[in-house]
């Protein structure tokens, strides 16, 4: 029996060493990526995304705020850390991670939308978090949303088992420098989605002929307040921004007034501006959108000057009244 245990233990030890080494190597590959979502994460955790204006939020932040265009219009360095498929909890985690690795930006623009106050319903594209679970803020929020992600953090190679060969392929690409940098759709955290109208909204309309009501979770409201206070505590100004949304969707949202009222109330009570850009005239025209919530390239081109002007005005006011610092 002793011989068997010795042999089994010896092999298990070898396998464990092998697994830990391979895990470290593959994670290094993911952390070496410069494109797609991993590229943005790597900018965030390695202090390469220093900005005067930081955009944060969900996919509507990701695809609406063209950081480079804002920079050229305002003269302020901008970066976008908006994340696809996320609610406020995860956005707060990402902001905290950003602040842990960067000087505080002068302005944080927090994107809000009609589903911002919905409770978290899980991780979208969960593999993106795997290389960054050693970041306390990331780990804490990911665990809250998906408790069993402790396995990704602590078990060697587990993320590659859970998320499949796709993640391994990305890691190997990163290790060997084989990324397709020429066709990367993400630049300074902004992803240009010049997609045609996709039609999902028409199905949505058919499925909800009597309109749609969205949740207003007290936890989400509290998280929004925490997010604002976190940024302000770091020394940043904050603005809430409701980016353009197709008017047809606004009309079928039964509790839209209540949700907008909540955003306005939070902004008022926290002393930050609330920019509602969903009243822009082009919100009635589908040709500016690829679905009811997201602008295409044409829409972003129309939105950018509006956002840039709002930023310029806000920063000018701030510069004129230094006593009004956050």
């Amino acid at each position, binding site marked *: *029996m002793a*011989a*068997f245990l010795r*042999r*089994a233990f010896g*092999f298990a030890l*070898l*396998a464990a060493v*092998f*697994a830990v080494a391979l895990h470290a190597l593959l994670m290094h590959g993911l952390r070496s990526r410069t494109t797609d979502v991993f590229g943005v994460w790597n900018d965030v955790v390695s202090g390469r995304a220093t900005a005067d204006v930081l955009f944060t939020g969900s996919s509507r932040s990701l695809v609406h705020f063209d950081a480079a265009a804002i920079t050229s219009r305002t003269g302020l360095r901008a970066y976008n850390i908006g994340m696809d498929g996320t609610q406020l909890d995860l956005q707060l985690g990402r902001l905290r991670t950003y602040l842990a690795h960067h000087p505080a930006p002068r302005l944080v623009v927090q994107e809000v939308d009609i589903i911002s106050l919905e409770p978290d319903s899980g991780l979208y594209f969960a593999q993106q978090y795997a290389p960054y679970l050693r970041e306390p803020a990331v780990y804490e929020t990911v665990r809250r949303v998906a408790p069993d992600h402790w*396995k990704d953090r602590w*078990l060697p*190679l587990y993320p*590659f*088992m*859970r998320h*499949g*060969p*796709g993640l*391994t392929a990305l890691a190997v690409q990163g290790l060997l420098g084989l990324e397709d940098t020429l066709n990367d759709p993400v630049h300074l955290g902004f992803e240009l989605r010049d997609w045609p109208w996709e039609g999902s909204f028409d199905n949505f309309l058919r499925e909800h002929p009597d309109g749609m009501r969205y949740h207003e979770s007290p936890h989400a409201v509290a998280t929004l307040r925490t997010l604002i206070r976190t940024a302000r505590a770091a020394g940043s100004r904050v603005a809430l921004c409701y980016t353009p949304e197709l008017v047809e969707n606004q009309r079928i949202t039964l509790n839209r007034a209540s949700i907008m009222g909540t955003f306005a109330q939070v902004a008022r009570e926290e002393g930050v501006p609330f920019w509602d850009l969903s009243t822009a005239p082009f919100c009635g025209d589908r040709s500016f959108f690829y679905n009811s919530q997201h602008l295409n390239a044409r829409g972003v081109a129309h939105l950018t000057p509006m956002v840039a002007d709002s930023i310029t005005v806000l920063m000018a006011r701030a510069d004129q009244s230094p006593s009004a610092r956050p």
Partner: protein
Amino acid sequence: MLFNSLTFALFLPVVFALYWGVFRSVTGRNLLLIVAGCVFYGWWDWRFLLLLAATSMTDYGVALAMDRTTGRIARKRWLAVSLVGNLGTLGIFKYHDFFATSLADALSRAGIGYDPLLLHVVLPVGISFYTFQALSYTIDVYRGRIGPVRDLPTYLAFIAFFPQLCAGPIERASHMLPQFARQRVLNTALATDGLRQMLWGLFKKVVVADNCATLVDRIFTDSDHLPGPLLALGAILFALQIYGDFSGYSDIAIGCARLFGFELMRNFAFPYFSRDIAEFWRRWHISLSTWFRDYVYIPLGGSRGGTWMSVRNTFAIFLLSGFWHGANWTFLAWGFLNAVYFLPLLLGRRNRAHLGTVAPGRLLPSLGDAMRIAATFTLTCLAWVFFRAEDLGHAFRYLGRMADGWSRAGAWQRCLAVLGDHYLLAPAMACAVLLFAVEWVQREHAHGLERLPAQRPLRWAIYLGVLAAVVFAGDHGEQQFIYFQF
């Protein structure tokens, strides 16, 4: 609890350490195995432990009662109690709704309205396996092949032995009970080989079977809209899936039992290298085939009563075997089709033409053997369509469409488009080729990793390679084993 889960990866070492390190007596170890069996089974649904306990205790009592009785009639009555108890439980949980709806269908065709009472009960995992294993005990006691077990922990440990509780191999009491009654010692060579067999089983399950499963599900679900070549591929992939799934489970079960000092019977002997359907059935799910042979075919007269009786008995066991798998006409059709495949061999007295391993001592088979293997595999794949289909209509439509679209360029483009969505198919296919290559080389041994190079570094490199394939090419969605539903 699933063998391919993290929970089991933690459960097994704990039970192993307690078994060899803490509990030293036979009774202590048997009690531990009972508790482990309950945890393992109860992980799925603890309420069905009561069912397991009830049927086990009935059989335990019946065997003791049979032993106390000398009269043949009385012994027969006690056996009937066991048969009714076990098969009745199986009937209620597995077959009641099928018979009720079939009766209602038949009556409605005759113009008689009948609203059947349906139970809609959940099928307890492994019920067909542990029921048949328990029956082997009471029947063997009735026949006088073995005496009854008086020590309750020994009997319950035999029934609740977790490696084979949910999906076999369906053991014989005469083979297993003596192993539970004696003191076990850890045999290093046996335990090491057990670990190797578990590793190989895990590879077959998560790398080959589970990766094939995704595309198989899609093809069978959309079969009415897909071209023939893709349907043919679906049938082949299902053959790979079910082999990887079930033989993988059996390998893990047998290997796991070895860690605890037990030898389970072999359940698969490289069936896809069979040269005819009779050989296939000697190599596929051996524990079930031999169960039906020992407890149905031979009592019915076997082949002793002439050709007609042989044919009748052959059809009986194939139909029963099909029906054992599930309450659906598709399983009966699958059994019937296999009986039809078997018939020419039986009538031509060629059903025992291939008893040994194919091409022993040679690298490659002869051309004739290769063609026979290919033909047997093709027939098996066609039969699997019935096994996998939702209903008979689906199976016939699937087979009908399989011949369609082979000469249309559009059909091939559609095939490529569907396959393009499944980027894991290529590594899964590569691993399936590797699986069969390794098993071909090892076909004279018990499992794919039994005979390895003598040098330890080389052996360990092979283990690490298989582990790496499991980690990086496996599907880790913890998919249930197909045979759990039976």
